[in-house]
């Protein structure tokens, strides 16, 4: 049996997208009342829920708090039903801790933490269904949740993955493409300034192709930022209509 062909000769990917096309993104903010901010985001079949508490006083030991800025605490988990085969451990394994750390680094770069010295911001993200691009879905959901919580940020943080197949960069990989053995690069971008908050790539890639790949990922992130912006604006409109009454 011949292997999967990630990019056909006609330029179609497995799921019918072209190389630069993103998956369908849908999002809602303020899905929970008791949290300070929350958001639900679907990126294709990857579904993420993000909840933000804070800024509030540091919990637990005082020693963790910083005198000049807020501490960001991230926790990532995956629902047991999120993958095709049921997961045994929803959180706390190596992969989840690594993901938590990456999220923390990303948002430390974006949130204006220096406005809240000696305090703490909690971000909890849960993947409800995993279909590739878990990290980027988490970042995008968490951004919306932070916006919903009213925490000042430098810019939206938009994240997207990109892969490299047959000399062509593919934007926003789905699970089948990610597990196909090729390169996958995750990038979190502050779109307006063009600053990169996080860049991660595990597989081997020839140096010459790196620029093209980053370029593709950045374009995808900018596309995403528009979607996120629309979601926020729409939410604002709804809320303002409600409050006017």
């Amino acid at each position, binding site marked *: 049996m011949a292997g999967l062909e990630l990019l056909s000769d006609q330029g179609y990917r497995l799921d019918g997208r072209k190389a630069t096309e993103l998956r369908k993104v849908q999002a809602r903010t303020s899905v929970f009342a008791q949290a300070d901010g929350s958001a639900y985001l679907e990126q*294709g*079949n990857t579904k993420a829920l993000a909840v933000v508490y804070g800024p509030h006083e540091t919990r637990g030991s005082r020693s963790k708090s910083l005198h000049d800025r807020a501490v960001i605490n991230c926790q990532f988990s995956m629902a047991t039903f999120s993958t095709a085969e049921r997961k045994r451990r929803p959180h706390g394994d190596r992969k989840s801790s690594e993901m938590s750390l990456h999220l923390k680094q990303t948002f430390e770069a974006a949130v204006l933490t220096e406005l809240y010295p000696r305090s703490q911001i909690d971000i909890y993200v849960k993947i409800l269904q995993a279909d590739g691009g878990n990290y980027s879905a988490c970042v995008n959901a968490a951004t919306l949740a932070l916006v919903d919580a009213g925490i000042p940020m430098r810019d939206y943080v938009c994240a997207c993955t990109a892969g490299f197949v047959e*000399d062509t960069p593919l934007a926003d990989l789905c699970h089948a493409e990610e597990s196909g053995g090729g390169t996958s690069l995750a990038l979190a971008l502050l779109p307006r300034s063009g600053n990169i908050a996080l860049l991660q790539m595990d597989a081997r890639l*020839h140096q010459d192709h790196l620029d093209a790949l980053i370029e593709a990922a950045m374009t995808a992130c900018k596309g995403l930022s528009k979607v996120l912006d629309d979601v926020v604006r729409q939410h604002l409109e709804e809320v303002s209509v409600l409050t006017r009454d």
Partner: protein
Amino acid sequence: MEGPIMIKTEKVLHLNSSKGRKVRVVREHYVREQVPCGSSLCQADCLNDGKVLSGDVTHYVVPDVGVVRDFLEILEFRELQGIVFTQTAYQTVQHTRGRRHYNRLRALLKDPRHDCVLFANEFQQYCYCPRDKGESQDKWHTRNVYNAAVWYYNHLAGLQPVVMITEDNDAISEFSALNSGVYVISTQEYLLSFWPDLQAAHDLYSSIAQTLQERESEAVEKVYTEHLPAEVLEAGIKSGRYIQGILSVNKHRAQNEAFVRYEGSASKNTDLNSDVLINGAKLRNRAVHGDMVVIELLPRNEWKGRTMALTEGQGEEQPLEETQSQPMPSGRVVGILQRNWRDYVVTFPPLEEVQSQSRNSQKILVIPWDYRIPKIRISTQQAEALQDQRVIVRLDSWESTSVYPSGHCVRVLGKAGELETEIQTILLENSIHVPPFSEAQLREMPVNTEENRWQMDSSEVSSRRDLRETHLVFSIDPKGCEDVDDTLSVRTLPGGKRLELGVHIADVTYFVREGSLTDLEARSRATTYYLADRRYDMLPAVLSADLCSLLGGVDRYAMSVLWELDAETLDVCTVWYGRTLIRSSYQLHYELAQSLLNGEEVEVPELSRLKGSQRDQKLVELLQALETLTRVARHLRAQRDKGGALELEGVEVRAQLDEEKNITALVPKQPLEVHETVAECMIYANHWVARKIQESFPHQALLRHHPPPKQEFFSQLIDCAKARGFSIDTRSNRALADSLEQAVDRQDPLVNRLLRMMATQAMSNALYFSTGACPEEQYYHYGLALDRYTHFTSPIRRYADVLVHRLLMAAIQLEKEGSLAKPLASNKELEELAQHINNKNRAAQHAQKQSTELFQCLYFRDKDSKTDERCVADAVIYAIRANGFLAFIPQYGVKGAVYLKDREGQVVSVDGDGRCEWKAGTLQRYSDRISSCTSTGTHTFYLFSHVTVRISVEPSRCHADSLCLELIRNKPHCPVQPESQPAGGGRSELVQEVVRRAEEASLQAVEERGRKPKLSREERQFRQSRTPNLYVLLQEISELALLDLSVCQIRNTEEQTSTASS
């Protein structure tokens, strides 16, 4: 989201997870309205790029999934036009029929000569229908294909009727009446009603259909063990339990011995560095020569050695225990990763055999031409008609219940034994397809006839560097050469401090645009094929012999490399590459150029019309240029020698050619220095172009490398040399070249020649590659001792040179404008292309060799070997085997086995004056000699000793005829008896005498061949030389000329063409 609107849907798949469990997976599936339809009749402005279906056909045809899966071969007929392949069918082929079949479909879609397109129906919003609950997969696929056909009809606004062909009868009854304009019929009906005249397609259809049917009603007793599933194989390879490799069958013991060579160096069993033996058909488990297989090693106590005895034919099956060598790693095939089946030429058995063969007379076992391929089962009713014909057959499957694979007939080639059939067989067996150039291709060609002269384009003239006035350009080729693809120039620049050396190559890429039909045809041919009596050109004659050829006295386009050299040290100062205009002033030939250099008084034809001082001045000018050129070439050669360049073209070959000169007036009396001068300049140009394109495109330049040989391959050479007291140092190319130079036996020049031949055999082949596919340290060219090398100088007859020309132009453009007008082929594409060219080159060499053998057999077939003096020849022993030795006959360039033991177990005994006869006795084999013990005494045959053999033809019905050597005297051969008293001291004279006589005999043979009536018709027809023997000798050169096969081939083939034209 920007761009066209896509609608997200989902589809549910049931897959096997890595742990082997069934998993339910939901995948997204995006559909859209805008999917290009790929038809020129499109009314909706689809974005059709690439291939487009023509509008002037009577209908479009949409094949169903089953048709594409099983009857793709029928759709490959070029007569069938307007084929729309659906994505549904395309993907099914990918998933069910394996990569080869899938690649064929892909190639079909890419080939612009086939009128077919792929329509991505599953991504079209209105075509795609999700699978219903409980619907079978086949039904769902058929429904999808039908929907696509309907959409296609509506999309083209009913301009073209659409025919869907299917093998599913339910579908015909269900859909045929639903829509007017969309017809659903069976494949057979389709062929009958639309292509009633295409008999070949009808035959092929019934042949495949019958095979499919047979397969279903197959018996169930198992002959072979089942292959393991792909997942298990993959896991096994990763864990090191199994080994992956390509199966190659031993031609001489096809039923028993096959070997698997490791793929790459990633093997975990580092202690196994040799090939793995697969002994017997059971262990080979249905693998066919060339397949990529997975094997498991057997336990050490079951290892077997390879048989060292020479076997006659392939009939013998009993393993001879005592003749086996050291046990070597043995294994068994557990699975096949990839079948590498091609078209095979087979012969049908005679009728009486057919009847006794099987219960149901429809199944017939046919015998492939290639010994390495097992017999094939064919179901056909035409067995009687096909008797003694050569037929093309394709393999379909090999079930574990069947002893032999089953296949079906494709086409009849002709009667076995006829020259034309045999030549076609050779071409086909080497997968060479050389149809005559089509009309569409010839239409692309520029016109140059008497009444309609070809003119240069004025815009081209202004954009090129004009060297017509400034440079003295000349070419040096064999006499009478028509396709001149290289010219030279050299001059001293003003000031006298610098020299300018120029190599100007025919600008083929100007005429052959990338992607044109001519280009595609040239690409698929990849090279010009030279057979013993004919050649198949890569480019149409109007280009190769006229417009591209840099003839004397006419303006021509060229690609030039110009070096500025320091006049004293000859170091390169600057290099210029680019397109130029040249007019070659002198079209010299080698002998003339050499005589000029030697200071002899010779007539230069171009100067004969001039007079007096003007003529002298011109002559001095030319002479000066030639001398400078020689000086530069000597310097270049010396530089390469320092690096260790190999010279493997034996001196002996030239001495052989020596005598030929008298009749052919073609080959120089002495190895002329000017040959080397020209070759050196070409190598230099190739080298510098390689540097340029590699620097400009580090990942996608086409280079040629020659990997260093494996040391273990030299063992035969070293052992043989030891037998004669020479030591060969093979540690580096330098050392090898030196020690070969030393190993000369004064009494027998053949020794050195044979040693060089063995060295040649130990070498790996030089190969093209893409720079991105190979680490930089492997760019090295071992034979030429250059760090980078490519082919640039013969674009008329090699496609690689055409590619390099394009790369060079792109490099120049990149330098000038900073960007490229057109993206280059990616590394992957280029590497694929390089592999293709390598394969074609190998095929060309094999075809050349086999056609020579064919002609040798034809030559000896008409002779009575018992009486004809020409069938007796002198031979040299060059290898020892358990029951005989291998001998080389310099007179005819034939190599073959000589048996010392016959089937009854009798051995050769030698009587007093050297005559041989069969007697009961034993053989004893040593590393450098073999002796036979009989009642009359013991006789020993040593390596490199001369014997007399009789050559006869062993006719074969199903395979190529072969030559058979029989030992008749244990003495060198002397045609006429007189003073041959072989005393110990007079040996050297004897050898000389023998060599001289052998050469005389060879001359005779040459003349004989020229007169042979059987060939002369072919010769006239193909305008080939009347002396095929010359070809044999030239073939020798190219075999020996490891310097670089191709560099020598320049000379070789030019000589060929000149013979053709003379």
